[in-house]
């Protein structure tokens, strides 16, 4: 079936079986291989993309369900020479080893910072009303949908913490 996908500001017409996940559409049909397939079951977060600014697992949704929505992938956040603040911070803090989870980590963190700016609490927030301060514990909880099998978590938290500081 035909689906109009708006990805990183470009419109793509996808003609694919309805079974095609958004992740497979990005990688196999449209050549946007920045988003990664890890578990393909929503457990690892490597496939994280933004739909209308919100982070989701692209492996657990069908491409045909996103006709007309604004999709942002890691390719849309920045490029060599023009990195997003989080991309630059991940490089600076060495927030990876193999790099496979990194696009998902950065897409997830991009949306996570916006959620916190909007005052969304997390499971570890003491107060449901207050604007949460993003310390290490808050960042770890809010990023728990992104696994890093290399275990670069402490550097990932450092990278995100730097961007939190720049925005304060």
């Amino acid at each position, binding site marked *: *079936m035909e689906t109009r996908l708006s990805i990183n500001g470009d419109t793509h017409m996808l003609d694919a*079986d*309805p*079974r095609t*996940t958004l992740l497979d559409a990005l990688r196999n049909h449209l050549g946007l291989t920045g988003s990664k397939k890890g578990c*393909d*079951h*929503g457990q690892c*977060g490597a496939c*994280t993309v933004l739909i209308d600014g*919100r*982070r*989701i*697992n692209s492996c*657990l*949704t*069908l491409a*045909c*369900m996103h006709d007309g929505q604004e999709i942002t992938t890691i390719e849309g956040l920045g490029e060599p020479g023009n990195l997003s603040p989080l991309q630059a911070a991940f490089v600076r803090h060495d927030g990876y080893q193999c790099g496979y989870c990194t696009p998902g980590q950065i897409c*997830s963190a991009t*949306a*996570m910072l916006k*959620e916190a700016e*909007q*005052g*969304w*609490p*997390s*499971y570890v*927030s003491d107060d*449901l*009303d207050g604007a949460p301060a993003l310390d290490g514990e808050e960042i*770890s*909880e*809010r*990023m*728990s*949908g*992104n696994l890093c099998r290399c275990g670069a978590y402490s550097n990932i938290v450092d990278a995100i913490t730097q961007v939190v500081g720049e925005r304060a």
Partner: protein
Amino acid sequence: MKPFDYRRAESPSDATDAGARIIAGGTNLLDLMKLEIERPDTLIDINRLDLKAIEETEEGGLRIGALVTNSDCAADPRIRRDYGVLARAILAGASGQLRNKATTGGNLCQRTRCGYFYDTAMPCNKRDPGSGCQAKDGFNRIHAVLGASEACIATYPGDMAVAMTALDATVEIESKGGETRIVPVADFHRLPGDTPERDNVLDPGDLITAVTLPPPPGGVHLYRKVRDRASYAFALVSVAAVVTIADGRFERVALAFGGLAHKPWRDPRVEELLTGEEPGPALFDEAAEMLLADAEGHGHNDFKIPLAWRTLRAVLTEASERGDTA
């Protein structure tokens, strides 16, 4: 994944067209379709229906549309202020990505499940009725200790519905023909009995349109979840508590439990035992003993019985300490 026809519902009646499978967030359904545990012939996408609002009811409660995402529900200022147990429970579940996709109605419909349900090489009465249950004598660490049957010992894995059960919330269901019925969340999910393939009371063609919360109950709202890791894991035991204390005594107690049974577990006898009494360790032990009198472990999950006991005691202790100053 088995091939299917995909259609978009433009109205609730499109969705209640019997026989087709409804998809909203899809986070559980698509996962199960990939494994061919769920094999719908037709998927009806309801994401364009006008069910995305949280509205105040005439009674002073809130009506949460079935397509309100878990993220939006937990972030809503009214939910955070008046129904803290629900915000806390939702935030205790899944991950940020999944909560952005998962919806209020879809979360209720997630399958009650265990590892054997997911393993298509194994028999499972829930997946393949009559084939047997490998969990009873297998790896059953996460399985039920209350309300299980010979056929199935799986646990309901969700958090949101546990809090909704404690809040006396109700589910609004539209059926084919446009008829609407209201079912308490506490009665929405089923115990397994002889038909573990049925997780809830929905019939084919039924569409959840909303969940309604009664007026704010006040009191202390707690959701305590005990799990194998700090985040993004199902509960071994969880307790949702809404507790009011007046003049040093429990005035109102609502308790619901996750991780213990095939559905969110509520035991009115325990709440009656506590109501009107002065909080204290002996009373908490009496409540836990009543809650768990019929609990039965299957080996690996025996630990859940003392764990539930201690978690209830800890929640009641915290509620009584905070309730006195509330």
